[in-house]
């Protein structure tokens, strides 16, 4: 193949043109096509991201619906347990409640006082607090106390008696003096 003989001037022009062409290609890919491709890739990634979110959201919503169906019993149970403690500070309602309860059980002069309160170690019960009470029954009958304790333990599922002390009253041997250390679990309000 015979190439035409080029003059020096033509070679210079050709070299300059080649350089210009290379620069043009560089500018084209860097400043025009590059940003366009980047933008397209970003959009594609964003679409994939959103699509993944959309796909998982459907399963999340389905999961919530299933969970709601399954947790029907637990919801009712939880509501019952919550309803055991009324609104307001426990110190305001627990002592009168105990006084009323023991009065109904024919045990008079019942007094409850708060000793302390503390939180649960279990993270599941972070929204609940333990209240330690001292319930004093200064004058009562052993059988009546036994009956009252049985009723109390059955009526208050979130109450547990930790310590029980029954002593005779020196001057009135027919009566006993009772001290109950009880713990109640009450939801934080």
């Amino acid at each position, binding site marked *: 193949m015979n190439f*035409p003989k*080029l003059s020096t001037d033509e070679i210079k*022009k*050709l070299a300059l*043109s080649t350089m210009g*062409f290379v620069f*043009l*290609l560089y500018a*084209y890919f860097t400043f*025009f*096509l590059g940003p*366009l*491709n980047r933008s*397209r890739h970003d*959009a*594609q990634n*964003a*679409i994939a991201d*959103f*699509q993944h*979110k*959309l796909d998982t*959201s459907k399963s*999340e*919503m389905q*999961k*919530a*619906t299933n*969970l*709601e169906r399954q947790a029907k019993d*637990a*919801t009712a*149970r*939880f509501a019952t*347990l919550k309803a055991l403690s009324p609104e307001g500070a426990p110190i305001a309602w627990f002592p009168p409640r105990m006084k009323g309860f023991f009065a109904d059980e024919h045990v008079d002069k019942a007094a409850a006082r708060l000793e302390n309160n503390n939180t649960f170690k*279990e993270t*599941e*019960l972070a*929204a*609940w607090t333990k209240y330690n009470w001292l319930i004093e029954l200064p004058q009562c009958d*052993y*059988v009546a*106390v*036994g*009956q009252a*304790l*049985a009723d109390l*333990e059955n009526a208050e*599922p*979130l109450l*547990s*008696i*930790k*310590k*029980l*002390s*029954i*002593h*005779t009253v020196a001057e009135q041997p027919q009566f006993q003096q009772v001290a109950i250390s009880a713990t109640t*679990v009450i939801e934080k309000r």
Partner: protein
Amino acid sequence: MALHLNLLHEEILEQRQRQRDPLKIGVLVLIGCGTMLFLYYLWTAYRTLEIKSRLGNVQREWAKIEPKVTAAQKHAAELTNMVTATRVLDNYIDKRFFWAPVLEKISHCVGPNVQLTAFDGQIQEDERTVSLMIEGVAAAREPRSAAEDLRQMLREQLEKNYHDVKVEFKTLEDAETFANLGGVRTPMARYSISATFKTTEEPKPTPAPAKVKHKTESE
């Protein structure tokens, strides 16, 4: 053979040289490449716009669903917390120790010749061990024997429902005073009984897996 004369030889040569002009060819190639690159740019721009439009649609769809999803996720988390809390609370309720049955058992043990003066009961930190301290007096011809009867009866009663029952005297001593039972001076003894028991059975250690003897080649 026909004679072929080319009278325009020089003109044709010039024309050929003009056609082979590298600058012209270069410009033509440049224009061709430029057109191709421009078309490719347009095609890429079109695809980008199309993808952006799709992105806009997906974003709008997500914006519609997102509040529902967030609410559903929050609700699911609340439900999960509630279910777990209920389970833990139920476990707490089930593990409670009931004192009324213990008082009933003690009342069954107290005969006409013994009297209780103090009862102290406490559930230990492990929520399984219960300790009782019972004090009282026994009045009989053999007051110590009456107190021992109470101790044995108490142990029998507690063993019916609890585990690892231990009932023992802390003190048992004759009183200096006498009780008047039906006009009869009866000797008295003061006792102090300590009882401990567990509400649930002690978990038994799992037996170690039996060693498997591997036969050696010599066997």
